[in-house]
């Protein structure tokens, strides 16, 4: 194995990993506040990609430059996904807030299937080619080859993650999110409207998922009704690997998973790429179920 190949795979891993991280944040935020694994989150990513596809095609045929089309379609996808996320919580999960934990979990799987079916109704089972909004000519940096699209993915993801960390740790609404995640009853006593905070959490997580969806669709040049499934599953794996409920965990987990998959490709055929995610998931669940950065704070009486 040559060093160049390794470096190239690390670069690829970082690109894929930062997408996983963005999606994993959506899982981990919702889990942190509701202890619910929102299996419909992968479909949110798909909705984001398809929304951006329609928007971008419309804007391009109207003659807008691709940069502008990209920015506007990302924005539209974020808004559509944020609204979808809030509606899903309101309609499907909130009535089950006090039900046994299995009920919302199964509902989440149901919502996931429902959204796929809606996507089939609207778009059919076709694979759509996603317009090339960002330049994909290879750029040579030392031994590795990247595209502008890939650079944009990493830079955008890092910026969004930094923004999220700032929001959650440095603002009033973020502190309220953490308080609600810890104790909803007491948060209510502080005057925090927990339904509002939960709604905001879904909106932010879904908007991040939307960006990830656009990035993936743009990078691979295609979008389809099923694209959220495997991506969602892997991002979920990344969230569990990092320690579900923990923001840093989701980010680190996403990056590591991306790296493991791509470096692993050096040793096995591409068809087997997907097994790495699940080997990692099983290994983490056996050896470190709380995740890599899952911490426990002493809670004295």
């Amino acid at each position, binding site marked *: 194995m040559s060093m160049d190949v390794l470096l190239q795979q690390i670069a690829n891993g970082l690109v894929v990993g930062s997408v996983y991280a963005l999606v994993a944040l959506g899982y981990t935020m919702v889990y942190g506040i509701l202890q619910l694994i929102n299996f419909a989150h992968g479909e949110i990513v798909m909705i984001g990609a398809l929304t951006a596809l329609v928007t971008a095609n419309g804007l391009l045929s109207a003659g807008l430059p691709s940069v502008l089309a990209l920015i506007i379609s990302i924005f539209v996808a974020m808004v559509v996904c944020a609204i979808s996320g809030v509606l899903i919580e309101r309609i499907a999960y909130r009535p089950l807030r006090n039900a046994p934990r299995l009920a919302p979990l199964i509902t989440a799987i149901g919502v996931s299937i429902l959204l796929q079916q809606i996507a089939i109704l609207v778009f059919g089972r076709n694979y759509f080619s996603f317009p090339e909004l960002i330049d994909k000519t290879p750029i040579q940096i030392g031994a590795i080859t990247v595209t502008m699209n890939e650079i944009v993915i990493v830079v955008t993801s890092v910026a969004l993650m930094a923004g999220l960390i700032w929001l959650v740790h440095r603002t*009033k609404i973020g*502190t*309220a999110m*953490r*308080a609600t995640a*810890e*104790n909803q*009853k*007491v*948060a*209510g*006593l*502080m*005057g*925090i*409207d*927990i339904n509002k905070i939960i709604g905001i959490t879904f909106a932010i997580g879904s908007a991040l998922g939307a960006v990830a969806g656009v990035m993936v669709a743009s990078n691979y040049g295609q979008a389809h009704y099923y694209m959220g499934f495997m991506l969602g599953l892997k991002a979920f794996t990344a969230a569990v690997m990092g320690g579900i409920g923990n923001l840093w965990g989701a980010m680190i987990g996403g990056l590591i998973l991306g790296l493991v998959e791509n470096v692993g490709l050096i040793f096995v055929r591409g068809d087997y790429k997907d097994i790495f995610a699940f080997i990692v998931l099983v290994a983490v669940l056996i050896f470190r179920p709380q995740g890599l950065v899952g911490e426990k*704070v*002493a*809670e*004295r*009486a």
Partner: protein
Amino acid sequence: MTAMLDIKKLEVAYGGIRAIKGIDFHVKEGELVTLIGANGAGKSSTLRALSGLVKPAGGTVTYKGKDITGVPSHALVGLGIALCPEGRGVFARLSVHENLLMGAYARNDKAQIAVDVDEIYTMIPRLKERNFQMAGTLSGGEQQMLAIGRAMLAQPKLLMLDEPSMGLAPLMVEKIFEIIRLIAKRNTTILLIEQNAQLALEHADRGYVLESGEITLQGDAKVLLADPRVKAAYLGG
């Protein structure tokens, strides 16, 4: 003078079991009223009903002439009611400082909040020493201090304290009651729920004794303190 908080025929039921069987009591502005009773007498159920954590099965809660029965807890803060919950309920993974800021969540006067936080630090220096520590690392007594300080940051007209002495060493209990006395002096009306009848009655203006969901005795705290029935039941003869 009409009461600030007026409870009439309050009933709380869990499933078919009636934990509170139609009680009447009131708190006047500026008073420190205590509701005492043994474990399971219904003290916390009463408070939960008052603070919107459970919907009363019957009766009314009137605050400053306004019916607040069943108002959700997050809406009470805006009316000037704060509850310091049983078991303190500090946010363990938030810093002491962040916990205090959450107490002021419903307020928007940023500058005054900073002043009030400093005032709490002056009143309870222990919190200042640990302001950037996570609340989960505090001792039980410190957590109770934090919970009270946090409730005060809502600028309540009425502060309801649920068993602030629970599970604390006697020395710490003394300190907690010192803080409660300071708060009472600042013209905050207090409803104190306590199992420690002796201490509660020593500090209160008036008291009610709750037994199996009913109020069996009420009156001036000093009188209750001397009442042989109270002595027999709660003060060890």
